[in-house]
Structure formats: structure tokens, C-alpha cells
């Protein structure tokens, strides 16, 4: 029984961790290419979920086409955001950029409230509600898809950055923008592309999250937990982001069960932050991050 509970907690934790991992992945994608830390990433996730909700309910599109159309729409929206809001700030101090993305997050959240209202909305369920048993632990189909999507994206991006020309040019741009220009890299396109890709990842996360919870304008708050995941993994590591997300997801689920009675309800909500504090004490650049080479 005790073992079965543990297993159940881990499996559900993995599903939630995958959501954090996907959001963290979005952070990493933008950070790797543009050196910008996009605090609006959770809001992009939310926007993606709301858009596909509207496509499904108002336009009566089936799930899959609606999802694909959402991906296209989100790509366009985030590219526009990048061009209008973020690009002028390239090279500005970290804090300025952080604040702009925080401002952007506010705008998106406010707009969502204006357009869709503040009620919780039920996302049309594309997957069967019947849970599947996995080694004695129950798991929703939506949760399975989330885990699978995360694993798939992990492989895709690992290969992308290591071997593809575009991936390499993104890494080069992230490191030194003006030299990237000299290599003939279309830096502007790299910036826009990184936002577009990140928004695709965010949308996947948002839609999957919505299928096993519901929609509301503050659903981005779940995305805040992607930050510890990201820090845990190291800011520039795709693998790290995903592992960080999974670790946080599982850890908080376990803490919620085993530690709640000692440390009070909601302990699972801050588990992520406690872990991050501890990891930062030991490894100031995350578990998988690279230490920056500093020359005097």
C-alpha cells in the first residue's frame, strides 16, 4: 500500500513536472538564443490554451485542427511581440528586460481577463476521462500525453541544438550577437524564431495542462514554478530544464503528501523554492548549467 501510494504520487508528479518542464523549456529556448529571460512565458502558455479553447468552442473545430491553428496563431503573435516589444531592448540591462517581460505578462493576463472573463472555463476534453493503470498507479490519458510530449520535445531539441545549422546559429547568437552578425547569421530571424518556437512549446504545455485542469486567467501561476525548475537545471540547458521540471513536479507531490502535516498545507507550493535555495547554495549555476568562463 505504502509503495503503491509512493508510485501514484511519483506518476502524477511526473505529469505535473512535465508541464513545468515544458514551460521551463520555453524559457531556455528564448534565453539560449537571445539572452532574454521571458517572464511572460507562463502567460504565453495560458494564451495558447485560451485560443485553442475559443477555436474549439466558438468555431466548433475538432481538437487536432484547432490545436494546429493555435500553434500557427501563437507563432504569429509571439513573433509580433518579439519584434515590437523585445527587440528594441536587446542589449539593455537584465533587469530592464525582466521588467518588460513582466509587464508583458500583465498585459496578456489583463487582456485575457477582458476577452474571456475571469470565470474558470472548462476545456473540451479531447482525451477519454477513463484513467489508465500503470504498474498499479492511475494516470489520466491527458497526463500520459503530457509526459510523452515532454520526452519527445527533449529529444527533438537536443538534436536540434547539437547538430542542426539553425540550432548552432541560435547558440552562437546567444553568446555574441554582433559576432553572429559577422558570421552571416540573420540575427533578427533567430530572435523571432526563438520566440516562435518557445510559444509553440508553451502552447503545447498550456493545452495539455488545460485538458486535465481548467482554464482561468491566473493559470499562468503554475508557470512560476517553472522558474525553480529552470534554475535547478541551469539556465541554458535543455536537458536540465526538463529534468529540473520533472524533479520539481515529483518532489512537490511527495512533499505535499509526506510533509504537509509537519510544515503546513501548501508546502507543495513552495517545495520547488526550497529545493532551489538548497541547490543554489551547493551549485550556484544549477545542476546542469555551465559555469561561465570568465577571463581577467
Amino acid at each position, binding site marked *: 500500500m505504502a509503495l503503491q501510494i509512493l508510485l501514484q504520487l511519483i506518476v502524477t508528479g511526473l505529469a505535473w513536472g512535465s508541464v513545468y518542464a515544458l514551460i521551463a523549456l520555453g524559457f531556455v529556448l528564448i534565453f539560449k538564443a537571445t539572452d532574454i529571460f521571458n517572464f511572460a512565458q507562463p502567460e504565453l502558455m495560458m494564451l495558447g490554451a485560451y485560443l485553442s479553447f475559443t477555436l474549439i468552442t466558438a468555431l466548433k473545430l475538432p481538437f487536432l485542427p484547432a490545436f494546429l491553428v493555435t500553434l500557427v496563431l501563437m507563432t504569429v503573435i509571439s513573433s509580433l511581440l518579439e519584434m515590437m516589444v523585445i527587440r528594441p531592448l536587446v542589449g539593455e540591462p537584465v533587469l530592464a528586460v525582466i521588467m518588460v517581460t513582466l509587464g508583458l505578462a500583465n498585459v496578456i493576463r489583463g487582456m485575457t481577463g477582458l476577452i474571456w472573463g475571469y470565470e474558470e472555463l472548462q476545456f473540451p476534453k479531447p482525451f477519454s476521462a477513463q484513467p489508465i493503470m500503470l504498474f498499479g498507479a492511475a494516470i489520466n490519458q491527458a497526463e500520459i500525453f503530457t509526459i510523452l510530449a515532454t520526452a519527445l520535445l527533449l529529444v527533438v531539441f537536443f538534436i536540434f541544438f547539437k547538430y542542426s*545549422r539553425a540550432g*548552432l*546559429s541560435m*547558440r*552562437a547568437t546567444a*553568446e*555574441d*550577437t*554582433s*559576432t*553572429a*552578425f*559577422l*558570421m*552571416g*547569421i*540573420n*540575427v533578427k530571424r533567430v530572435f523571432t524564431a526563438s520566440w516562435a518556437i518557445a510559444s509553440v512549446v508553451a502552447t503545447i504545455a498550456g493545452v495539455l495542462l488545460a485538458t486535465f485542469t481548467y482554464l482561468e486567467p491566473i493559470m499562468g501561476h503554475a508557470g512560476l514554478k517553472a522558474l525553480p525548475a529552470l534554475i535547478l537545471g541551469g539556465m541554458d540547458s535543455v536537458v536540465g530544464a526538463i529534468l529540473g521540471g520533472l524533479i520539481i513536479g515529483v518532489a512537490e507531490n511527495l512533499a505535499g503528501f509526506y510533509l504537509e502535516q509537519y510544515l503546513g498545507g501548501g508546502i507543495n507550493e513552495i517545495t520547488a523554492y526550497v529545493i532551489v535555495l538548497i541547490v543554489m547554495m551547493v551549485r550556484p549555476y544549477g545542476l546542469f548549467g*555551465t559555469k561561465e*568562463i570568465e*577571463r581577467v
Partner: protein
Amino acid sequence: MLRINNLEVVYNDIILVLRGISLEAPEAAIIAFLGSNGAGKSTTLRAISGLLPYEDGEITKGTIEYRGEAVHTFDPQRIVGLGITQVPEGRRVFAELTVEENIRVGAHTRRDGKEEFRRDYDRVLAYFPALSRRLRVQAGFVSGGEQQMLAIARAFMARPSLMMLDEPSLGLAPLLVTEIFDIIRKINAEERVSVLLVEQNALMALAIAEYGYIMENGKIVLDGPSHKLMENEDVKEFYLGMKSDKERKSFAEVKHYKRRKRWLS
């Protein structure tokens, strides 16, 4: 091949950095581009590379022509595509990429297939055998000389017809400087690549260049074939540090007058 006509560049809408310079680089030649700090040499290179718009700079007057085509409005990636590459000042290798990845990034604009890439890759390693031992090392961890080689190798991978080098000797040991200048000369001769060489080390630069331009305060003040420039008394005095009797004057004795001025006033 490259012709700059009366180029004027303004930074931040106020600072006039280039005040109408004209310059010419023929096919397969080495051109030296000399001048003091802040004279505008690097700005000229940035103007050619198309980097200015991204650094608050603007070409307000004049043209840059490459093989007869006006290119000063082109984006950097288009310039590289035309075959003009720049080795930036201070090397600027991508420190967190490996040496090999750095070389691959250099070939970013090329679309001529794997085999061609492989061929050039081998060739560049033949020019810089030191690099082939360090391929898997992060570029930030290799020595300054190797970084400079990597920067040149990286630029070479774009298959340029004009290579612009911004102070390749900066901070390098004399032995390495000679080695790098040797390679530059070799690349120029064997690959028929034109080289535009910006240097502080006037002696070295003029030694391998065919023609030289000397720039001060955003203007070209003197130009001519290298050997003519080396004969010039002013060049000797201010750029080569020689007295008229061909003997180098000692740094231990220069400009006492300037210091004394302080005590007189």
C-alpha cells in the same frame, strides 16, 4: 573589387566618426589600413559589414561598392553571402561552443552541400594544424593565439573573396604574430582572397601589404604602395617609431619635453 566612396558615418545621430573616406581594395591583394585608436578604422569595417544599423550608427553620405554593386544598405548576412567576412577585433570566438562548432558556424551562409564543406574544413585545418588538436575543446579554454587562428579559420569557412581582419596581432606574442601574418599571406596567395588588414602594428602590416591607407580623425590622410609609405618621413616618425637616420629611437628617451612642460607652467 571593393570601393568606398566618400563615406560619412554618424553615431547616435551626433558623433561624426567618418568624415568622407574613400578606399579601394583590388582583387587578391593585401591592403593595410593604419591609424591611431579612434581614428575610425573599426567603424569603416563595421560599415562594410553592415553592422552599423545595429550599433546606433548610420551612413549619412557616400557609398560602398562591391564588384560594382552598392552594398551599403545590405544586411550583414547578405554581405557575408557576397563573400565579405570580417574577423572582429579581440577574436570574439564563441567561447561556449567547441572549436569545431565555431568552425561550423563560420560556414553558416554556405549552401553548397556537405562535401564542399568537408573539403574546406580539411583545408582550414591544414592551414591551422594547431586547431585540429583542440577540436572538441570549448573555444573559451584555448589560448589567445589559438583563438585568433580560430577566428580566422571561422571567417575562412564562409569562402570569402574579401577578408577583413581587425587587429589580428592584438595581444599576441611576436612569434605568433609572425606566424599569423604568414598564414594570412599564404591564404591570400593560395586562395586568392583579398585581405583588408587593420593594424596597430604598422611595421608588420606594411611588410606584408601591397598598399596602405593611413587614417586619422575619420579621414584618410595618406595612402600609397607599402614601400612608398615606409619611405615617408612622417610615417617613419609616427607609425614606425624611427628617426630619420633609420635607427629606432628608444622609448626610454621619448618626449621628455612633454613631461617638463608640467613643471614650467
